């Protein structure tokens, strides 16, 4: 809960410096972006002030975070029902999931939700360690086709049919 209790046995959390750097860049970009805005005639405030304040605050917070990190401040990572923080992070699984999500982004308008949605479900289940691929594919396609019809018929929202245009 409080940072002090965990300081004793900790090294400096390097990744937090990276976070501070990213925050600082975002803050500076916000300020630069706001400089390019025009203030209209007779508008005493204009669209610049608010981003200036936020950008500056962000830079200040980034500096504070960097200082705190150098002093040995470590974050308290979030726990959860299925989260086991004692093991090292499993980056391979995360990379697989991100890859599948990116694939879905690239294909969804081309092939259609009814197909990519099914692949998305089965792919994610596979990446997370499921070994019942056929069953996952079946469940995935039932989910995606059903959701397509639910949105089309029930809500009047046409999700992209893709190559199944005319069949669905």
């Amino acid at each position, binding site marked *: 809960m409080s*940072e002090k209790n965990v300081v004793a046995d900790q090294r400096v959390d390097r990744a937090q410096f990276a976070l501070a750097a990213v925050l600082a860049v975002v803050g500076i970009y916000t300020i630069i972006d*706001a400089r390019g805005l025009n203030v209209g005639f007779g508008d005493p405030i204009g669209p610049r002030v608010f981003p200036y304040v936020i950008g500056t*605050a962000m830079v200040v*917070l980034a500096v504070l975070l960097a200082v705190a990190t150098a002093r040995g401040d470590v*974050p308290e990572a979030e726990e959860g029902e299925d*989260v086991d923080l004692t093991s090292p992070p499993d980056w391979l699984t995360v990379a697989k999931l991100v890859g599948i999500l990116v694939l879905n982004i690239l294909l969804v308008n081309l092939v259609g939700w009814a197909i990519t949605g099914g692949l998305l479900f089965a792919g*994610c289940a596979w990446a997370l360690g499921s070994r019942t691929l056929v069953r996952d594919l079946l469940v995935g396609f039932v989910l995606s086709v059903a959701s397509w019809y639910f949105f089309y018929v029930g809500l009047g929202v046409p999700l992209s049919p893709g190559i199944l245009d005319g069949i669905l």
Partner: protein
Amino acid sequence: MDTLNLLLDGFASAFTLENLLYAAIGVLLGTFVGVLPGIGPAMALALLLPVTYGLDATQALIMFAGIYYGGMYGGSTTSILLNTPGESASVMTAIEGNKMAKKGRAAQALATAAIGSFIAGTIGTLLVAFFTPSIASWAVEIGAPSYFAIMLLSMVLVSSVLGASKLRGFIALAIGLTIGLVGLDASTAQARLTGGYLELADGIDIVVVAVGVFAIGEALWTAAHLRRRPIDVIPVGRPFMGRDDWRRSWAPWLRGTAFGFPFGALPAGGAETPTFLSYITERKLAARRGSADEFGEGAIEGVAGPEAANNASAAGMFVPLLALGLPVTATASILLAAMQKYGIVPGPTLMTDQPDLIWTLLASLLIGNTLLLVINLPLAPLWARLLRIPRPQLYAGILFFACLGAYSVGQSSFDLLLLLLFGGLGFATRRFGIPVLPLILGVILGPLMEVKMREALDLSNGDVSGLFNEPLAIFVYVLVVLAIVVPLLLARFRPSPLLDQHVQREDQEVS
């Protein structure tokens, strides 16, 4: 008895077969999603938002009410039957609830949680109905400077009071405010922070932000740290309580409600503080009766009190939301976003502009609460089985529905890209212990705050005094300063706050 009549009118319009059906669907969907591990009420609402797109405003609100209470109830089921609570509001419930479940009293724990939630929710909603109109009629008078100050107070409280690290709270807030900046400036129509992308001109949809940070972030974070050994789920029969359980529960329910409602209604009250206070109170009272040793071993009072406090604060949250347009929890932020989608502008004028809608909403909250009890008590064993869903399929499902929700907003793959980016942000917030609530609040309140600030400064022709020229505003600024300074002073005199210490000890006991 004006309020009562209006509320009865609300019931009249909510009580059609169709509307009841929507309320029931909402309760079922909300509980279903809320029970799933890793999904709290806010995420449940965000994920289920697209389901209501085809409905008109009234029906959508009725369904939200059902989803909202369903999600809350689902969350407490999870924390009683599993060892690790998913959300901070359920931490206190889990301490005694899980112990009860382990001793074979899961049915009684679930029953006292459900009935306590029902009673607290009903009393809370009635209080909302009686308080909101008077606060709203007073709030109409609030000028832009005071409004700005109140929003600032709410943000400062949420960022600094809740959560373990103030620095991280303010970082979350700044990230949220920056996200809120993206899009065309409201009064001059110039693009800010869009990087030239036309898709960003309308700003970033709060649904995409919320689903990304909550759902995708949670799934990625869990994927990186997935518990490989199977988790213990305690089987449960149909919830019921014996005469003794009733005798021991009713007073904690009422005390919990009394703690929860005011905290929920205050900006940044949240559910953590009242559930904690309720737990401590029940334990002290038990000690006075000489039965303190049962606490920590599964005392029913320790479930009844905090659970009631949790739900009462969830109801109290509607007071600032409806009367001031001020969301004070992540769930309220999503509700606010949902209302904006239907062109409803929450705030002081809402009560006068669309009274029918509000009274229907309040009536459907009461209906949803009742349905929850009627539908869910018999269904509890079924919900408990959901906890056994294999984790790969569970998180694949969360990712599937998250993508579906974001994609259905505008049928554009750009939204899916944004979703993934916010998923990355959600992962980072979990990795670095950055709280999510200030972030979401920043996204939704930021633009509103800018409007009020410019309104106030326009009137004073750009002079800073325009922000301070109302007594109420000055009073609120004093509160803001106190909110920042007092905790710092307290920290000096008492190195580690009581709450933290206590929670930490309980955490260790639980895990």
